[in-house]
């Protein structure tokens, strides 16, 4: 899409906003609609739109596939690790009170935040990985084909 000047400029403007919105949805999920799943998808959309308008190579330079694969596993590890952490402190699995034993409600806040981060990270990774897997196989269509 080399000659689509408007698309390229608008995308450059939008990508930052999309990432910012994803982070807002991620960390404001306690107070407003949204959470890890939605934020992960929006984050992935940022990468995907960059990959569509610019080339796949460009976005792979920003977010290389090996890192994507690590990130996919990292999210689940964050989530499960939170549960293990609470086990070590003598609480039940995924009992967030373990994070701040003196103030269980704060512990719940932090726990939800961390767990949602894990969800978001995994979803971002999976969506971007799936996009890479599809886009890497696609023959590069010329714009006239659409």
């Amino acid at each position: 899409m080399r000659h689509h000047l408007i698309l390229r400029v608008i995308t450059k403007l939008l990508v930052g906003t999309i990432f910012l919105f994803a982070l807002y949805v991620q960390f404001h999920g306690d107070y407003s609609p949204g959470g890890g799943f939605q934020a992960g998808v929006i984050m992935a959309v940022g990468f995907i739109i960059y990959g569509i308008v610019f080339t796949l190579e460009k976005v792979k330079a920003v977010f290389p596939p090996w890192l994507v694969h690590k990130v996919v596993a990292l999210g689940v590890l964050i989530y499960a690790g939170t549960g293990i952490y609470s086990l070590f402190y003598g609480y039940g699995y995924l009992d967030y009170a373990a994070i701040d034993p003196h103030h269980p409600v704060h512990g719940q806040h932090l726990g939800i935040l961390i767990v949602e981060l894990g969800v978001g990270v995994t979803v971002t990774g999976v969506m971007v990985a799936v996009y890479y897997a599809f886009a890497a196989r696609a023959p590069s269509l010329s714009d006239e084909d659409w």
Partner: protein
Amino acid sequence: MLVITALAVVRTRSLFAVVTLSGVFSLLSALLFVTLDAVDVAFTEAAVGAGISTVLMLGTLALTSRSERSEKKTQIVPLLTVVVAGAAMVYGTLDMPNFGSPDAPAQTHVGPEYFERIPKEIDVPNAVTAILASYRGFDTLGETAVVFTAGIGVLMLMSGLGRRRKEDEDDPDQEGGST
């Protein structure tokens, strides 16, 4: 409007239009969820259904042909199945409580208990997040694992398989349980 879009999806032969229309369908159902006060679900539907899956469908479309093969013979059995299943679902909705009814199970079952406990125990304004991540933490862990597994599966199917098969031909002993 949902019905019209669904009919258009069925009738259209150009797959590009079908993909776009299913995006429209997702967006409309997101609006429906907003009407039902399920904002979190609507958010997900709009982001996943209308956004990501449309893009992925277009990606798939680039790999296959652009238009549907036309079927000449009328398919009476699928039509019958759809009609019967649809009628069963409509019959099922007859038992559902009216829209916004205070006696609905959602209002009377465990809902009030959660709304009573959340301000004391978790103190998070968004009850959906509180239930999802704290009371139902195990479920959400399972969901994350499902997303993880699905992603790994797609990766193995789409990218790794051809290469691995070639490696296996070179030395068949390589196949272990590590995958």
